[in-house]
Every structure is written in C-alpha cells, then in structure tokens.
C-alpha cells in the first residue's frame, strides 16, 4: 500500500466516525417517527392556545343575546365576527374587553354596495346615502336582531 493511503484512509475513517457520532447526538429524538420530520413538532403545533372560542362558549353566559341572535337574519353569524376573539374574555371578563363596533364603516365591510357581492347572498346598502342623519348603523338597527328597529 502506498504510504500516502496509510495516512489518508485512517484519517478518512476518523472523519466519518466523528460525523456519525455527532450525527447521532444532533438528531432530535422524535425525528423520523412518522416521516422525515420531528414528530414532536406536531404536538407542539397542536398545543398552541386558541383565541377564537366559538359561539357555544359565548352562549354559556350570554344566553339572552344568543337567543336574540338566533331569531333574525344574523343567526348564522359567529359572535366573534363582530366582537373579536373571546379567549381572553372567557378567562377574565374584566380584562378581556371585547369590541362593540357598529359604525357605517364596520357594517359596510359586509353590507356596502359592491358588484362583486351577490345580491342573493347579502343585503347591500349605500352606506353614505342611507339615512345620513344618523351617525352609526346601530343607532337604528339592533345588530343581534337587525330588523328590530329602534324608534
């Protein structure tokens, strides 16, 4: 055997061994359990806390509002569409303040006139021309029962 290889081959072997040992310690434990990824990362993703709690959680306390909502056109809506995510509020009703919008602009995100919206899907209104003497939509409309008009 040439003297060069007598040195190079053991060096190569040492190099490969170091790599294999390092590799053994560097690969995370759950890697490759289901596929070429860290299986624990799925559990970590699943463990992220939720922010939107859903209608049932709201109904536990606010039964009158929920009942009213069910009576009219907004019945299919989730509470959190208008009020925002409720997880903080469920945990602590004092701190997790929810939104109560009702401005022309806010209601307009769904109900302003746009040819891209199908009239059979959504009622649309010219949010500038419709009763300009009033400030906000909720001055007349009860958002939980939209055709129950005030005055």
């Amino acid at each position, binding site marked *: 055997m*040439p*003297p*060069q*290889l*007598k*040195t*190079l081959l053991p*060096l190569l072997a040492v*190099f490969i061994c170091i*790599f294999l040992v*390092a*590799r053994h310690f*560097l*690969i995370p434990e759950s*890697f490759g359990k289901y596929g*070429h990824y860290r299986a624990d990362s799925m559990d970590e993703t699943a463990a992220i806390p939720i922010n939107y709690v859903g209608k049932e959680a709201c109904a536990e306390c606010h039964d009158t509002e929920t009942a009213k909502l069910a009576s009219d056109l907004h019945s299919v809506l989730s509470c959190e569409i208008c009020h925002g995510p409720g997880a903080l509020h469920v945990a602590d009703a004092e701190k997790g303040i929810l939104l109560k919008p009702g401005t022309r602009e806010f209601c307009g995100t769904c109900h302003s006139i746009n040819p891209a919206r199908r009239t059979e899907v959504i009622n649309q209104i010219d949010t500038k021309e419709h009763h300009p003497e009033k400030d906000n939509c909720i001055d007349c409309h009860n958002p939980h029962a939209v055709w129950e008009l005030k005055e």
Partner: protein
Amino acid sequence: MEHLYEMLKQVDGYIYPNEIELHWGILIVLYPYITGLVAGAFILASLERVFKIKVLRPTYHLALLTALSFLIVAILPLVTHLGHPFRAYEIMTTPQVGSAMAIFGFVYLWYLMVVLLLEIWFDYRHDLVVWADQSKGFKRRIYKILTLGVTDISPKALAWDEKLGYIVTVIGIPSAFLLHGYVGFIFGSIKANPWWSTVLMPVIFLLSAMVSGIALVMFLYMIISWIRKVKIDMACLDEIGKFLFMVLILDFTLESLDQVHRIYEAEESFEILHMLVNGKLNITLFVFQGLMGTIIPLVILGLFRMYLPKEKIRIPMYFLVSNLVLFGVFFMRWNVVIGGQLFSKSFLGFTSFKLGMIGAEGFLMALVWMIMPFLILSFILWLVPPWKKHSE
C-alpha cells in the same frame, strides 16, 4: 420594515401579498457565481492534467489553488443568508433526500475534501517535504503539518503521488460537473417559477461556470505575472483564449436556445416574462450579460482565431475579455436569481428590488465575500508558490 413599505408603493400590477419581499438577495447571486468560478477553474486545470494539453502547464497550479480559495468562501454567503445560521448543520445530519438543496452539504464536502484538497496535496506533497526541510520556525511547522506526516520522497512514493493525483483528477471532472450542474438544478427544478424551471438550467449553469472559471484564471494569470514581473506565456494565454471561445459559443448557443424555446412555445407565463425581460431586466440582460459579457468577448476571441495581432494588443484584449466575461456571468446569475423573483407567481405584476449598501444582505457585505477569496488565494500563493515548486 420601512423598506417593505417603500417597496409596497413600487408594486406594479398585482402580486400575492407575501411576495413583496425578495427572499433571495445578492448573497444567493454570489453563491452560484462563486461556485461556478470553482468548477470552471478546476475544469481548466484538468484540461492540462487529464486531457494532456501541456501548453496550459503554467496555469495548472494557479487554477487549482484558485478553485480552492473560492470553494472555501462559496459556502459562507449561503450560511450567513440563513434565518438560523447555527442550524445549518441539520442539512448534514438530516438531509431530506427529496430536496435538491439537501445534498449540497455532501457535494460540497466531497468536492472540497476528496477532490480539491487531495489533488493539491498529492501535487504538493513532495514540495512540502522539501520546503519543511529548508525553512525555519513557524513556516516549517505549517509545512510539516501539511505533509500529514507522510515524508517519504523516494521515487516510488512520488510515483504514487502522481498516480493517485491523476485518479483524483479524473474523479474530479465529473464532480465539478456535478457540483455546478447541481446548483443549476436547484433553480431549474422549481416548477412554480417559469423563469427558472427549464431542463436546460443545469447545463446553462455548468457552461457559464466554465466560461467564468476560465476567464478568472486568465485574469489571475495576467495579474500575477504582472505582479511577479515575469513574462506571460503567450502560447498558454492563447490556448486559454481558445477554450474560452469554444465554451462561450456553447454557452451562448444554449442560452439562446432556452430563450428561443420560451418565445416559440409562449406558455402561460410568456407575457409576464416578456415584460420582465424588456422591463426590469433589460439592462442587466441585454447590455450587461448579452452585449458586454457575451457578444463583445465572442467577437474579440473570434477575430483572434482568424488573425492573431501582436502581443502588445493581445494582452490588453485578453485582459478586457476576461473582465467582461466575469462581469457578464455575474449578471447572468443576477438575472436568474433576482429576475426570477421580480415577477409575481400570479403572473399579474412585479415587485421591485433595491440593493442596499449596508447590512448583511447589502452591497458592501457582498463585496467583502467577493474580495475574500482573493485574499485567501494570496495567502495560499505565499505559502505554497507554484513557481517555487521543486518539480517545475
């Protein structure tokens, strides 16, 4: 984040909202550029060794050492560009074999450790042993370490050096093709991006790599001869010019074929690519890459094939050609990497790219990465000067 708001104003047409920021910047332009210089320089060296083109002897060692200096740097812009550079080892410990990028760590190591370092070591071992005997102090210790303790310089051992070195070079040629063809595949295999997705991409990358590597060795050979105040071997320079001409023709043909094919097929993405080429890329593609980097060098080198003027004219012309080619190939990489991200994958609009001066992705940082291989090369040339080799 201010620059993103600035870019938001410059959006042209419609782009997906996540597409405002270009994810691969100047550092990823440098990566195929530097890797290409390595592959090209190595292939020039192997022309001498394997294909026995003896007239190229004066640039053989220079080409090898150039390839080594650039290969050491090649990986650095890539790693610094990562969001988590310290996790880069994962590409070696858990390479995902379905990914074109995953094998890079191994291809890189193979090329660095098995091909380049070994070939240079076999080539220099005799000299290292002699130099270790002749020099004193620190330098002596370095030479000693570099011999790896193999100090046998009997004719038999030297014959082994020659034989093993030759084998490594023969293995090295497909490795060099693999290294850079593979870099082209990283881009060419992205079906989501019609500017990248072409089966010709690895071949184009390989040929432009050879073009740039040959031009780099040509440039360095002239510069180093000038610094050392020695006469340039014109036969060698003419031969390099000849090969540069040949590869440049192939490169130009294939890149043109790619474009002609795109224009003739005129697929779904044709309109947006047409606008890209004639708009945001028109200067870097037609002037920098096409005219300056390809046409002018082709004309000059082509004329030299028909009529060889005096040395006084040829030397500055070769110098000009090598610089133009290096400049042009850089912008070829630019047009691929940056150009491929300027248009939206909705094919309905463009974002913009402005190269900043400072920062990890800025011009100055890119300049540092570009200067570094030259510094490394200077050091290596000082340590193991090819012109002081025992065998020469």
